[in-house]
């Protein structure tokens, strides 16, 4: 087992463990903080895959914006921040069963895919990756159209948010 495999196991365990805590912890706000740990774990996995750009974007967008939005939502909507409602309802057994079945099904399907046992490709030079990503987003034959459509969608969402929030319409 080499160093990157050890790191992978550590971060995978962190991601899964904190994801489990998100759904089992009793305090809402703790769930939000455990979610941040999960997102960190995912970012670390991206970094292990040599996708530094995606890892950083994961941190900036998910930890820096979305997780903080979650925490604010929890803080501002709950009357008593220390409330400890039960996090599981009567159907948790069924949910666990179906989750296990789904996991088993995916595991069987993925075993047949030959990419599953493939060896890790040699590390790509990191500088090339980000340049390639950048040029791919502005090349008409590649991802220019999806990129622009996503930008227009975000702009529409922005204007919509301003319209909804504006008091004197």
């Amino acid at each position, binding site marked *: 087992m*080499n160093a990157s495999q050890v790191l992978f196991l550590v971060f995978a365990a962190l991601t899964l463990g904190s994801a489990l805590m998100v759904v089992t912890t009793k305090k809402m706000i703790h769930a939000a903080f455990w979610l941040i740990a999960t997102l960190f774990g995912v970012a670390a996995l991206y970094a292990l895959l040599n996708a530094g750009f995606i890892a950083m974007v994961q941190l*900036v967008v998910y930890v*820096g914006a979305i997780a903080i939005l979650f*925490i604010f939502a929890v803080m501002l909507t709950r009357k008593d921040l*220390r409330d400890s409602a039960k996090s599981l309802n009567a159907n948790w057994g069924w949910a666990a069963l179906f989750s296990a079945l789904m996991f088993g099904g995916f595991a069987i399907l993925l075993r047949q895919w030959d990419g599953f046992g493939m060896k890790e490709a040699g590390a790509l030079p990191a500088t090339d990756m980000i340049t390639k990503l950048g040029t791919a987003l502005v090349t008409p034959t590649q991802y220019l159209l999806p990129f622009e459509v996503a930008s227009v969608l975000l702009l529409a969402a922005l204007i919509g948010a301003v319209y909804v929030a504006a008091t004197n319409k």
Partner: protein
Amino acid sequence: MTFWTDPFNFLFAWLSGVFQGWGMNEVLATVLVWFVGILLLVTFAMVLDIFLVWVERKVVARFQDRLGPNRIGPFGIFQPFADIVKLLIKEDITPIGADVILFNLAPIFSMMSVLLLWAILPFAPKMYGVDLNVAMLYLVAAGSIGTLSVIMAGWSSNNKYALMGSFRTVAQMISYEVPMVAAILVVTLMAGTMGTVGIVEAQQPFVPFWVYSPLALLIFLISAIAELGRSPFDLNEAESEIVAGFHIEYTGMKFGLFYAGELLHSFTFGGFIALLFFGGYRFFGLENLSPIVGAIIFLAKAMFFYWVIMWVKYTVPRIRIDHMLAFNWKFLTPLAFILLMVTALVNRLLLGSAWLVPGLFVSNLILIWLTIEYLKSQARKTRAQEEASVQSVAAEA
């Protein structure tokens, strides 16, 4: 390769050799040397931090026409050690109803968000932790951990002032991230890379990036001060309104971590201003003597911009929260985006020509002039409206 020409790699090879001499295999030795390196870098930052306390207290004293600490050691330089002893022997209080784990984790996260930045600071050509190709994004990502620590502290303290302080801080940090990222993007455009070493290498000795884009420097400085939560943006700990803000319930060394984190954060941002706009470790070819000279130049520049941040802090009074938000969203953010577009356009048009630098500089000046003219006309309009309403009230009375 000697210590003088390449200190980090020389020490790395030497230490790795020592560990392998003890019978370790190469991988384990390399991992261990990395850990030792991280430990040394963090220790250096923390020891520097101790002296930053002294610098801060001495400088604020001068700004306020006082002498500052001057009893312990020459010029009072050992005052921080007395401060540390005081902080350590203070009672460690956890408020009733506090969320103990998050309460204790928050100061650590606060310090961590600063120390993470030291990984990407290039002290000299071959002296840096890592040369990330996404270093500028990393800077923003580390900042979001700082925001997180403030929320943690504010929420877990079980104190309404702490919660208010953390709400204010988060609103401020998230807002001012936008112009800061735009200013960083301007630099990225001019350097053609997001890596810190690449940005420093892209700056010529006589024309660092502040000549290319003085407006980006100004925007970055303002938003950096807001990110740091220092005056005039210290609403998060406004003493006259919310006592001490998010760290109100912290005592002893836990408070010390927040305080030390803030000082080191300011110094680190001084370093980022130096490397983004003032050529980092480059100083008219002097850095070619040795990386050690380069590191001294870099730290001196970082210290200077730390001083600039202090200068602003102790000169300008705190601004109101609605002004803070309006200034960001209605003025700084649009200006930063216009600057980004203008820079991109001029950069593209003049790419490779000798007129690139003058073109960018002049376009910046024009943009500044237009902004000032616009602000002037807006101010006149607002004043005329106010005067008209005052006169109509007076006429009725």
